[in-house]
């Protein structure tokens, strides 16, 4: 039994005829074609599938797509493009915040939420903010470096804009 689901993702409307049990992660990847959200454990522990729903980070593998109607969703595709990386993406690039890239989208969404709530976090606050997600490549240190660096990049961009 399929039903029509309409979601607002990154400010755009996506409609799909899906079973009510369709997970948000599957809707994003296989119906909306937004493959930047990765699925790691499918039981809510690893955090690779983290997206922002209603302004708060959430595991997209633990939500049904149909539950998210009327609740705006943000994914990694809402950040920059390859030619115009966002400060966070730029920070991850410059500080080697990724290796295999599989956890990266989730980490970027956690950092997006953090910097909205706390634009100048300390390293401890960054560590706390990412401590729910697994990365198996980096040992986390350069992810923290990257987010810290993004704050500097953002400040520089803001300064340039003001001048």
């Amino acid at each position, binding site marked *: 039994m399929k039903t029509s689901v309409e979601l607002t993702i990154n400010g755009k409307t996506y409609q799909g005829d899906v*079973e009510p*049990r*369709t997970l948000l992660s*599957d809707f994003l*990847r*296989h119906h909306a074609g*937004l*493959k*930047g*959200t*990765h*699925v*790691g*454990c*499918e*039981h809510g*522990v*690893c955090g*690779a599938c983290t997206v922002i729903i209603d302004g708060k980070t959430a595991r997209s593998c633990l939500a049904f797509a149909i539950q998210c109607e009327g609740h705006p969703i943000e*994914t*990694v*595709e809402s*950040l*920059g*493009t*390859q030619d115009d*990386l966002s400060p966070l*993406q730029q920070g*991850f*690039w*410059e500080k*080697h915040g*990724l*290796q*295999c*890239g*599989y*956890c*990266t*989208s989730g980490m*970027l969404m956690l950092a997006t939420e953090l910097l909205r709530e706390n634009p100048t976090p300390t*390293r401890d606050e960054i*560590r*706390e903010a*990412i*401590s*729910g*997600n*697994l*990365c*198996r*490549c*980096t*040992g*986390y*240190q*350069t*992810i*923290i470096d990257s987010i810290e660096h993004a704050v500097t990049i953002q400040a520089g961009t803001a300064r340039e804009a003001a001048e």
Partner: protein
Amino acid sequence: MNIKSKAKKSIPTSRQRELPGQDLKWIGKNMKRVEDPRLLVGEGEYADDIALANMLHAAVLGSPYAHAKIISIDVSKALALPGVHAVMTGEDVAKVTGVLPCFGSPPVEQRCVALGKVRHVGEPVAIVAADSRYIAEDAVGLIEVEYEPLPVVADLREAVHAKGDAVLHPERGDNNIALQRNFKFGEVDEDFANARKVIKRTLRWPRSGAQPLETCGAVADYNRGSGKFTVHANTSMYNYVGWLWAVSLNVPAHKLNIVPTMAGGSFGSKLFLHKVPIIAATLARATGRPVKYLEDRLENLSSCDHHGSDRYYECELALDADNNMTALKCDVIDDYGAYFQFGIGHHGNALSQITGPYKIRSVEANITAVLTNKCQQGAYRGFGSEVSNFVLERMVDAACDELDLDRVEFRRQNFIKKSEFPYFIPTGNLYDSGDYEAVIDKASQMLDLPGWRKKQAEARKEGRYIGIGLATCQERSVFSSTEFWSLNNVPGFTLTSSAEGVAVKIDALGKAVVKLQAPFWGNSPETMAAQILAEQLQLEPSDISVVYSDTDSGLSGTGPGGSRYTVMIAGALVGASKIIRDKMFLLAAHLLQSTPDKMELRDGQVMIKDTDQGMAIADIAMQAHFFRLSFPDEPEYDTGLDASYTYDHPLTTLPNDDRTDLGIFYPIMGHMCHMPVIEVDIETGRVTFLDYVAVHDCGTVVNPMTLAGHVRGGTAQGIGTTLYEQYDYDEEGQLRTGSYSEYLMPKAMEVPHDVRVGHVETPSPFTEYGIKGGGEGGRMGTPPALAGAIEDALRPLGVKIDALPVTPSRLRGLIREAQGVITRSVPGSRVP
């Protein structure tokens, strides 16, 4: 006296073309990764990102029993479910698809779907292809299987004595011993007889695993017209042994094209997939439609075929009157699980550096590989040599404790000296170069070891338990394939090639495309290849793109593994670049009315030496591709500017017949010194990091930033192995850590705030530029260093760390036992 071991052994001549120590523009610099921009915007193409038209989705019914006969399977309800296109049992699969590749000799029969009997929890019993994964999983739930349970073998020491129904593979004999062999290298009996002191220890290394965040996956297509398979998969080694899938599928190798996807982490565990792609391909042939099979996390944990080493050691270390270590005996039982895909290559790894950085002159290794009702072993960062590092360093620490010697000075005294390289160790392997004192000196200095010793003493007065650990370990790199078979009683397929090819094309506009023969699996192959080719041809890295070949167009390529890839790709790129450079010189010389020997590359142009006359590479490339009549009618001027080059292992020899000498098989020898400083909370058993220094010597460093990334990431995995991680099977063979809620890994709170990484560079005399491998080192040094640090912290209580993981609860148990609060041994805290 053994004459053979004393005879002077010859070392093959070095094939190094590019000497270390040159003034280099790109190699040795921190370069941002060229892979990153697409990964950062979510455009990496992983296995699940492959979508073919009309594609079906597979799901697998895994066994709930660890060991059982399959009496009957009823698939009728599953087949009747709308949207289901195929349901296949082991019997159905066996009619069309053969056994899976096995490198063990004699091989252990394994199938992608169990036939007649299941041998571990999670082993596939039936497979389904349906319109969606959801429907496929519904169908799996409708399959009815009747099992007859068999006795379960879950303990490695009991496995040695198993008989009758407890035997997993009766066709191999009435026991569960996959392989048993004794090796003696040098005069080990004499050295023990003459020892002043013998240190004895029993040690336990637990089964853990790589846990890449992306599971194993494949999308297979079968063209009924051509009879050809195309399989996209996140596997490595496909240009080396991928043809073995074709053997399993009962088609000739040219009827199978393997296309790599990016891998979301591997750490060895995607070295050579077999079950996942063969399941997808079998269903694709049965349905005539493309099929995707991606393991879910439970399947990856319970059935990925790549669990890490699981070993029980009884060790003895002999010392002479001057506290020199002279001989080592290791009696080891290794729990291989239900199958034997890679044979005991893991122990070849261990024997390549069994004596560590020390001048231990004789070794006895008594290896027993047993089969049990668990997922089989595969590859995980270290491939078994991380275990021998742990064992040796634990023995060294034990020697220091028993003889009241300083852990630094004792190591320093026993090190192979810089002047003694190249150095043959007793097993026959050669260490190419090293400077171990420089590494330990740098680490001590970076840590401020005396300063921490002082702080530790002060803290102890306050009742705090601070410990400083130390491990000085080897990181063998660039394996030779002889280790696949040299330990077998029946050698089997005695291959000796482990090459790496590369194809380089300079297009008409002077930009380069490099084609690698192995996938991206979380390392930095594109960045590394771009740096090396930019150095060789004086191109800008941004003018180089790197792609990954499939098997149809692939050259020989063994792929990443055993920390070989950078060394091998450098060798291949140097070879290919020379061909291209020679041709550019030939063409430019003709156009400039000069001779090739007068040409040189200068500032990215081909110039006549000592003049300002020359041509841009782009101009030569345009001529090479489109202006054939500008050149003489000789074959060397033929159209195009490209080269393929296959680089063979730089330094390897055969083992001798009686295996008293294993030959040179893992010679490019890295080294590391790890020094963690930790504090133990004796009330909770929690270990907190106060500092961490890791100094590595991987020869000439190509990209310090990415190498430091490997060191830190490997260190985090080593912390996991030491403190948290375990595939914990109960006596019924049930996996108690079958989800990430139970299989605990370090997150950001469980790792040091700053792993301070240092590099010493002792170049290899045998590889291009002197590069050595460095991809696995972190995990190869952390476990012994951290175990030593915990012991050091708890010295006042006399706690010994003989078994990993030292989880907080186990450590608290050991502490309470030492305090006399409890007397009963804590389950799992001691060597079982």
